[in-house]
């Protein structure tokens, strides 16, 4: 984490050196992701879509949903980290993403705590 932060600062710094015009100041704030990465990520998302469709045709029993959701989570992470720049963003942004997922997990987990144990009956 700290290494990455250093890199960001370095990037800011060089940005200033090359072109001290003020309009570039904030350009360097948003870490500019080179198109090469977008192409790689976009292609892997398409490939993963193919993989998940293919996996759905293989009978894996209870693991079909697990595999499908695992691939979906992986794809979503790629989008969040690279297309949405979270990999290069501040800790605050990362925390924001995390807190959303956390609250969603609370909603699911505690609701299911009721549904999963309702059939256990009374004691």
């Amino acid at each position, binding site marked *: 984490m700290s290494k990455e932060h250093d890199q960001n600062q370095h990037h800011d710094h060089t940005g200033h050196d090359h072109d001290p015009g003020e309009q570039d100041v904030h350009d360097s704030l948003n870490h500019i992701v080179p198109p090469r990465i977008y192409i790689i990520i976009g292609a892997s998302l398409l490939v993963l879509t193919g993989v998940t469709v293919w996996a759905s045709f293989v009978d894996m029993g209870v693991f079909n949903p697990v595999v499908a959701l695992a691939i979906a989570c992986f794809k979503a992470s790629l989008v969040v980290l690279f297309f949405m720049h979270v990999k290069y963003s501040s800790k*605050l942004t990362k925390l924001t993403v995390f*807190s959303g997922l956390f609250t969603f997990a609370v*909603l699911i987990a*505690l*609701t299911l*705590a*009721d549904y999963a*144990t309702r059939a256990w009956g009374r004691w």
Partner: protein
Amino acid sequence: MSTDTIVRLPDQATARIPKVNFLSKENGLLSWLLTSDHKRIATLYLISITFFFAIGGTLAGLIRLELLTPQSDLMAADTYNKVFSMHGIIMVFLFLVPSVPATLGNFLIPIMIGAKDLALPKVNLLSWYLYMIAGVMVLYSMITGGVDTGWTFTVPLSTHYVNTNVITTGLAIFVAGFSSVFTGLNFIVTIHKMRAPGMTWFRLPLFVWSNYAASILMVLGTPVLAITLVLVVLERGFGIGVFDPSKGGDPILFQHLFWFYSHPAVYIMILPGMGVISEVVSTFARKRVFGYTAVAFSSVAIAVFAFFVWEHHMFIMGVSNYSTLVFSLLTMLVAVPSAIKIFNWSFTLYKGSITFETPMLYSFGFMGLFTIGGLTGVFLASTGTDIHLTETYFIVAHFHFVMVGGMLMAFLSGIHFWWPKWTGRMYPEKISQLAALITFIGFNFTFFPQFLLGTLGMPRRYAAYPAEFQVLNVFSTAGASILGIGYLLPILYLTWSLKYGEIAGDNPWQATGLEWQIQSPPLTENFTEIPVVDHDAYDYEWLEKKEKEVSSVG
């Protein structure tokens, strides 16, 4: 300085309200309707929530009047259902949720952190418009027949068995929800990104902390209510069946989703009020808030716990016994951060130089009533007693002690406390102290008998009741009329003081917050130059030193 008051006003003969301020800067209706100044938007909110409070209060009066006698004689039973439903909907969604955040929070947060405005001024205005659209929709649905599901929109009652305006009202609350989301979002962003140089997190006034915690709840909780209401509307309009048992849906799922928001909503209502109390208690005890960090983190802790307890609204609805156990325990844990606050305010008072101006009286009211309201919550969290007490007047008394005894007291406390800053004029002290006293007495007369009624088994939401409950109900109705006077008085004398109140000067309470170091009413962008903060919140020594400097230079 006299010992019984800390009020220090400028010489009334020479004092003037500053010519240039946010109120006088521009004139005309459009300058208000298109404003992006957070203080003007706060003023718009103040006027509109007072309007809806008056409507909700009138409905409350009708409820108490009906309950004066055991028979349903003032209105028909289904009219009564509509009256208490509209009372709940208006008071919860159009008054309590926006009360402190959208008025005082809107007005104060940018000033307290040393910013010129909220981070997103236009979004702030949008949120007021959304609020007004929601308000108009609720009024429309009320005029065209009302809604009688209770404020909880309980399914399948709301989706199948009533033919009142569920869809209009549901959509109104959907819109009001977005208003609340945008307010919360704006606060979080502002508090994170707009603080003045030197204003670190642990120098923020506790009012900012508590609004921050409430904003987290607004942002994360409200959307779940929104989607729930969408499903209710779709169910009613097209019969999609997610909550309809006859189609295999589950009404309890509705309760889960509804209370996932509506329990945190209770903390949206109370947390900003707690922030007001921190400010007021410190100022009128002339001491730093005892255990600043603990109070700050207890706000955040309440916000986090808020998402773990919703099922305690559903103990009798057929949820799993095992999850009931867990939720019962988690619910009782909320008492811990709440108690931290109450204890820390008490310790703040200890050995303080206490004076008893109106805001302080309301704060004392808050502390007493909120403690009762909170502790009776522990009764309800215990599953055994809950089965006996749920859906009785005990519940009604419990949440009115928290919402009215707590939040409304805090709101009035805050309005009195910052009135001089907002308008530049003082409210009349003696009559307002009287109003605070009347409110406190009236409140206890109204709602304490309801605890007794509830334990005796009187169910809520009925227009008629067995004759043996009448004595306590008469007490309650009598108390409500006293309470009504207690609420009418501030509206009258505060309006009066707009023209005839004494000139307040910059800092009548000699308080330490940044808002007290600028002119009242403030300038449009608050500060002539952005302050550099070099002291903690509630640092009265810093204030003394600063005033000495000013007087020696002068």
